[in-house]
Every structure is written in structure tokens, then in C-alpha cells.
């Protein structure tokens, strides 16, 4: 199945590992993930590394998960508004639903996502965790 393919994930390492998006050379709009055509119509972009800090717009705690996440379940996922502008979907690490609030400040942290059985590849990527200032 596609989710076990290391190649499909490998292709996205720059985004997944380093938050590399792009920025329109015409109107300076920042995109993550990268876009090929800006809303302003421009097709010229420059790579832009996002800072990895932002705030939680909304979140959930997944209790019934897809198969490959079963060992990690439950886990929190949220939509994060990054300080640089774009909004992204990300897991919220080291947290359960009771300790999160809409508006909490978060920062990126490199974590393991899934491992395909005992013999398959381990998928890594960036998650977010509550920034120190948000922890009571």
C-alpha cells in the first residue's frame, strides 16, 4: 500500500524535515507546501524555510486511528498557523487533549511518525509541541 512506500515520503523530505516552502517573487506570498502557481498569477518562486513557530487554530485527539498509527494511538493533531503565514496540519507531540487550548503557542520538534511493521522503513517528520511560554 502507498503508505508503506519509503519513496513517496522520501520525495517530500525538504518539506517534511525542514519546513521548506516557497515564496512568490511577485507578491511575496509564502506557501507551504510549495506551489507552482501563485494566487497573483506569478509562476516565479524562491525557496523559503519556515521558522517552525506558530499557534494552534484547532486540534483533535485521534482515538480511532489508521492501522499504521495504532501503536502511537491516541495522539493529537492540529492545524497550526505559522508565524510566517501559512497554516499546516501537524501532530502535536507530548500532549493529550486536556492540556491543549486553541491559541496555544507551539514550536516544531523532529519526531517519529510510523514504522512499517518490524522490518519496514521508519517514517520521520516534524511535529509541533507546546512552546515553553505556553506551558503552565
Amino acid at each position, binding site marked *: 500500500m502507498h503508505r508503506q512506500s519509503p519513496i513517496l515520503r522520501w520525495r517530500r523530505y525538504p518539506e517534511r524535515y525542514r519546513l521548506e516552502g516557497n515564496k512568490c517573487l511577485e507578491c511575496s506570498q509564502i506557501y507551504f507546501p510549495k506551489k507552482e502557481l501563485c494566487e497573483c498569477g506569478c509562476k516565479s518562486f524562491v525557496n523559503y524555510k519556515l521558522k517552525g513557530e506558530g499557534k494552534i487554530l484547532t486540534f483533535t485527539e485521534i482515538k480511532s486511528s489508521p492501522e499504521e498509527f495504532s501503536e502511537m494511538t491516541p495522539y493529537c493533531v492540529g492545524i497550526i498557523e505559522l508565524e510566517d503565514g501559512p497554516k499546516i496540519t501537524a501532530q502535536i507531540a507530548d500532549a493529550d487533549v486536556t492540556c491543549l487550548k486553541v491559541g496555544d503557542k507551539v514550536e516544531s520538534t523532529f*519526531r517519529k511518525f510510523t514504522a512499517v511493521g518490524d522490518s519496514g522503513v521508519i517514517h*520521520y517528520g516534524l511535529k509541533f509541541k507546546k512552546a*515553553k511560554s505556553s506551558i503552565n
Partner: protein
Amino acid sequence: MIKKLNIGITGFGCYIPRFRIRTDDIAVANNQNVELIKGALLINEKTVPNKDEDAITISVEASKTALLRAGVSPKMLTAIYMGSESHPYAVKSSSAIIGEVLGVGENFMAADTEFACKAGTAALQMISGMVEGELINYGLAIGADTSQGSPGDALEYSAAAGGAALIIGKNKSEICANILYTLSRTSDTPDFWRRNKQQYPSHMGRFTGEEAYFKHVISTTEAMLNETGFKILDFDHVVLHQPNGKFPLKAAKALGASREQLKYGIVVHDIGNTYSGSSLLGLVNVLENAQPGQKILLTSYGSGSGSDCFIIETTENILEKQKIGKRLINYLSDKQYVNYNQYRQMVKMIH
């Protein structure tokens, strides 16, 4: 006569997971006398990696802080050596993954090292040699582990997770601590091992003490003092491998070091034994608290067995670096306790 090196640390960082378990809780779960265990190990609590943490994720977080403090672009790194005894893959480079995540590019040398708890300092020696030999300008050495200890075993009280990363360079204006000397002693000592495909290591109990840890730590440190002419009391800080709280104290006493010299170098009490991260976490804590011009003695220990000894001296730049990035003390204060059942669930996935 031992060669004096012209290299130094330009960046350093550490990472420990957020979760902790108290020694009391492990002792109660194993029907052991809490006070007896705590008295024997001098460990109050230890770190517990979350299910989504492993030696690679720990290395990445420690390295990010090291890069921040080094103030160089990741692209300037041309070697990464990561030491661990819990590399997530048996075959697939941890160092290559770390390089990709940090954005080092593809122009770098890399390999993973393993020598029980001294895999990190072995990596540091390799990087140091390459910078000294002008093969590279900047290299990253990391020691990190999600340590294993089987349930009920003495190791269960200490085996913890954490790691530290050091960037080595030779540009004097960037160096915050000169690495002056390093030497090692190595012998074939069957004190502790883990066979392929085994989840937990095996060890020979009390044999891991006198004939293993103490013999190598003390003889290697003494060899260094003999070679360099330094006396133990010449050092402001002494950092020894710390599998528990008692061993480094006993070794330090045998070497004639004072409690004051160990003040920042022993961090095991509230972290546990982070294996390849152990002595390097002590070093990072020293660097985060040292004054310029202070001398540091670091001796690691890896079962099987050997010790790597370093003499390090801080420079004026240390104060600036201390103002940047997350310090060990920040990680120590940001913690959440888990109970024994949660702990077993969390470490179940770790190999």
C-alpha cells in the same frame, strides 16, 4: 609525548525527553525497597522517551541547538558521526538522516559509531582528528540513546533517554572551548553486551564495576594526567561517565577530585543513564555554566571496554554561546511524570 590539538568546540547542545519516571515508582512496581535502591544508585528520576522519540530524533534536537550556538550554516558541516547503542536501524545510517533533517546538503562524510556508552565520545575523537588533520573545517559529533534495560533488571532504574551534540572547528574566533588533548584505553572486557536482535542488553552484575568501569575510567584518566603533566586538581570541572550517581563519585574520589569539581559534570541524578549521551550531557551542562579560561576533564566509559579522555579549556566565547538556545536546565525544568504502566507502554516500542 601526547600531541596537543589546535581545535575546539564551536557549538554544543543537548536534548532530553519531557517525560520522567521516579525511581520510587519503579521500585514499588518491582517490590523493591525504595530507599535501598535510591541509596545504591543515587538516581531520583529518569527520562522516558515518548513513543515517537528515538536516538535519531534526540540527536536532531540536540544538533539544532549546537548549530544555533555555532552560528554556522548547516551546509558548512562536512562530517557527521553519531554514536549510539540504540540506532533505530541495524542497517541504515542515523547520521545520514540527521544530516538530511538539519539541511546539511549532500557534501558530508558520515557514519554511525557504536562502542556501548562511549560511542558518542568515539565520534567526538573521530571528528576531532579530521578537523585537526584539516580534512574538514566543521564536523558534528553526537552521542544519543534511548537506553534499554529489561523489566526488573537493575538497569531498569537507570536506563534513560537523551543526547548531546558538539560542533568541532578550528577557527579560533568561533571556538568556545579548546580541545587540548584526547587519549583512550581499550581492552576486551566482557562486562556488558547486547547480541543482534536482542531487545535488552546482558551484563555481569558487579563485574561491571571494579574490572570494567573503575579500571578503565581511572587508568585512562591517570594516563592522561601522566602524559600531559596536569594534576587532577588543576581542573575546574570533572566529567565522568555516569551510569548511576554512585560510580562517578567513587571514581572521582579515587582520582582525588573534589565534589566541587563535579558540581556541573554529574547530571545523572535527575536524568538517568543516557548511555552514549551520558558523559556528553555532563560536558554540555559544564559548558553551559563554565566561565572563560576554565579547564575541563572528561572521561567516558564504554562497556566491552574502553574509556576516552579529553582535556578541554573554555575561551572568552563561552559566555556568548551560553546566551543562545535551550540549555539542559530548561529541559530539566520542563517535565511531566508518568506512572509505571505508562512508562512500560512508552518504552515498549523502543528497541
